[in-house]
C-alpha cells in the first residue's frame, strides 16, 4: 500500500517536473513592484491565450535596471525613467507600459470627507514648517471647514520606492525650497515625520494616528477607503484623485518630444489633471542575442497594449492611450538581432 502511494507520488512529481520544464518557455523580466499586480494579471490572461508564460520578479526598480544591464533578463521594469544619456550608455530602449497615481491620505478626528491642499502647502507640511492642522495656509484653502488644533504627523515610505520618487518629484517642482533642502529620489532624508514600511505600513500608520497625513498608490487607497486630499493642480484647479483626473494628466503628456521617452507625469497642465501621476517603464536592450526571447516579450507587450486596458482599470491602473502605444510599437524597430534585422515586425 505504502509502496503504491510512493510510486504514485514519484510519477506525479515527474509529470509535474516535466510540465515545469515545458513552462520554462517563459518571458523573463524583473523590476518595479508598483506595476506587479497588473503585469501578473496580464500574464495570466496571455498565458491562457498563447501558452507563453511570464516570469516576472518584483525586486524593485533599482534591481530591474541592474538585471537588464547585466542581461540576465529579457526586459527590466522601472518606476523611475532612465535619462536619454543613461539609456544610450547601456544600449537600452525604454517605453511606458502602464500609469498610476499617487494620492495623499489623511486622518484627523473631526474632519470627514476630503480636504483641499496645494503643492506648496504639502511641501511645507513634509518639511515640518506647517505643524498644525489649523495653520493659516490650510485654513485659507478650506474656508468653510472647522479645522482642529491637531498636530500634523507626516508619514512617508521608509524604503526606496517609485512612489517616493513620484511624490518627491512633484514636491520638488512646486516648492523650490523642498527641491533645495530635500530633493527628489527613491530614498530621501525627510526632515519631519514618521517612516513606515510599504503602502500597507503607511496606511496603517495613518489610520492609527490622529493628525497623520501620508501618500500611497491610488490602487491601495481605493481598496482601503482612506480619506483623500484634493490637490490644486498646475492650472490652479482643485481636483479629486480618480481615474478621470489620472487620464487627464496622461492625455496632456507630450511623449513625442520626450527624448528616450523620459517623462515624469507630475504637475501636468490641464484643468482636470491630477498632479502626481506617473508611468511605469519597460527597458530592453537594442542589440539582443536571443531573438526569440525578445520577440516573445514584444508580442506580450503588444497584446497587453491592445487587450489589457480593462484589466488595468479594474486594478485602478491607468492604461496607456492608443496613440502612445502606437508610438511605442514604432520605437520597437530599434531592437535588432545579431544579424542587424529588426526583431519586431508589425
Amino acid at each position, binding site marked *: 500500500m505504502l509502496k503504491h502511494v510512493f510510486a504514485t507520488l514519484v510519477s506525479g512529481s515527474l509529470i509535474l517536473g516535466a510540465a515545469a520544464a515545458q513552462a520554462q518557455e517563459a518571458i523573463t523580466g524583473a523590476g518595479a513592484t508598483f506595476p506587479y499586480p497588473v503585469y501578473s494579471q496580464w500574464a495570466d490572461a496571455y498565458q491562457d491565450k498563447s501558452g507563453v508564460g511570464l516570469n516576472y520578479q518584483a*525586486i524593485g526598480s533599482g534591481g530591474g535596471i541592474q538585471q537588464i544591464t547585466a542581461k540576465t533578463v529579457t526586459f527590466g521594469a522601472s518606476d523611475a525613467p532612465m535619462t536619454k544619456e543613461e539609456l544610450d550608455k547601456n544600449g537600452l530602449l525604454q517605453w511606458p507600459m502602464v500609469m498610476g497615481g499617487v494620492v495623499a491620505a489623511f486622518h484627523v478626528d473631526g474632519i470627514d470627507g476630503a480636504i483641499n491642499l496645494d503643492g506648496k502647502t504639502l511641501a511645507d507640511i513634509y518639511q515640518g514648517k506647517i505643524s498644525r492642522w489649523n495653520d493659516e495656509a490650510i485654513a485659507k484653502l478650506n474656508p468653510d471647514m472647522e479645522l482642529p488644533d491637531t498636530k500634523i504627523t507626516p508619514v512617508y515610505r521608509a524604503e526606496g*520606492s517609485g512612489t517616493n520618487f513620484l511624490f518627491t518629484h512633484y514636491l520638488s517642482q512646486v516648492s523650490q525650497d523642498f527641491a533645495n533642502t530635500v530633493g527628489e529620489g527613491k530614498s530621501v532624508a525627510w526632515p519631519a*515625520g514618521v517612516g513606515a514600511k510599504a503602502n500597507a505600513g503607511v496606511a496603517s500608520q495613518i489610520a492609527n494616528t490622529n493628525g497623520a497625513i501620508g501618500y500611497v498608490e491610488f490602487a491601495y487607497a481605493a481598496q482601503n477607503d482612506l480619506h483623500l486630499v484634493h490637490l490644486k493642480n498646475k492650472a490652479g484647479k482643485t481636483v479629486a484623485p480618480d481615474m478621470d483626473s489620472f487620464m487627464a494628466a496622461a492625455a496632456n503628456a507630450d511623449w513625442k518630444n520626450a527624448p528616450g521617452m523620459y517623462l515624469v507625469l507630475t504637475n501636468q497642465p490641464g484643468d482636470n489633471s491630477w498632479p502626481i501621476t506617473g508611468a511605469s517603464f519597460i527597458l530592453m536592450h537594442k542589440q539582443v542575442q536571443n531573438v526569440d526571447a525578445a520577440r516573445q516579450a514584444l508580442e506580450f507587450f503588444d497584446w497587453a497594449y491592445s487587450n489589457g486596458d480593462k484589466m488595468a482599470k479594474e486594478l485602478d491602473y491607468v492604461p496607456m492611450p492608443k496613440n502612445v502605444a502606437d508610438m511605442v510599437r514604432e520605437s520597437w524597430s530599434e531592437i535588432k538581432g545579431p544579424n542587424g534585422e529588426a526583431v519586431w515586425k508589425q
Partner: protein
Amino acid sequence: MATPQAIQTGGGLGGLSEATRKRLQRKARIDVWFERVLFAFAFAVLLLLGAIIASLIASSWPALERYGLEFFTENRWAANVEVFGALPAIYGTLLTSFIAIVIAVPISFGIAIFLTELCPNVLRQPLSTLIELLAGIPSIIYGMWGMEVMAPLLRTWFPSVFPAGTGLATAGIILAVMIIPFITAVSRDVINTVPAVMRESAYGLGCTTWEVARRVILPSVKRGLVGGVVLGLGRALGETMAVTFVIGNNLFLNPTLTGQGTSIAALIANQFSESDGTQRSALLALGLILFLITFAVLAFARYLLRNSTGRHA
C-alpha cells in the same frame, strides 16, 4: 589515554599479538582522521568569518574612500543627493539596544530568580515553557504587534512623550520584549547550577530571600548571567524586522530618547534592494560598522568577565 603517535610507533606494544596491534593501529588512524575533520570544521568557520570581513571591506571601500571621516560626522543619510552620514544609524543602534538592555536585564533576572527560588512547583514548568515560546515568535510578528498595538497604546497613554507612537524608545521597548526570553532562559539555567547546599546554608544562617538572591546566588553565577546578557545584546544590535516597523525611520541625527530615528539594520533593510553604486557601497560600509560594533561589544563583555572571575570562587 595513549596518543595516536605512541601507538603508531609501536614502542610500547611489543608484547601484543600481530592482530591486536593491527586493530589498534586502525583505530588510531580513524582517530587521527576524526581529529583532522573536526579541525577542518572549526577552521572553516574562521575562514568564513575572514571571508565575510574581507568582502565587506572590499565592497564598502569605494564609499569609505570617497567620504572618509565625513561618513562618521555627517548628520543625515540622504541617498538622493549622495550625502551619507552613518551617525544617525549608529546612534539609533546603540541607543535602542541600550534601552532594551536596561529594561530587559532586571526583568529577566527577576523572572529567573522567581522561577528557581520562589515559584510553586506546579507553575514552574508551564511558566518556563511559555517564556521559551516567547523566544520562538518570529520577529516580524513582534514588528506588526509593535506597530498595530503597542505604538497606538503609547501614543494614547503618553501623547507628550510619544507623539507618533513610534520612535527610538518604542524600538527599545520592543527589543526588550524580544530579548527577555533569551536572557531569562540562560539565567534560569545558570542559577539552577548553584548547589542546593549553598542556598540552604545561607538560609540556615538566617538570610532573607533577598539576601540569598543578592549575596549568594547572583555573585556565584555572575559569569553565566553576563553571558546571557551578551546573547540578548547581540540579538538586539542586529534585530531588523521588528525595529524597522516601529523606529520611525527618520534619517536625520536626532539625539533624543523618544524621537524618530533609524538603526543600521533597519536602514540597510529599507534601502538595500533599491540601491546601486555609491549608495550600495555606503550601505555595505554600514554593515561593516555593525559587524565591528557587535565585535566590540562581545570583546568588552569578555573583558568584564575576565575581571569578574576573582569573585567567582
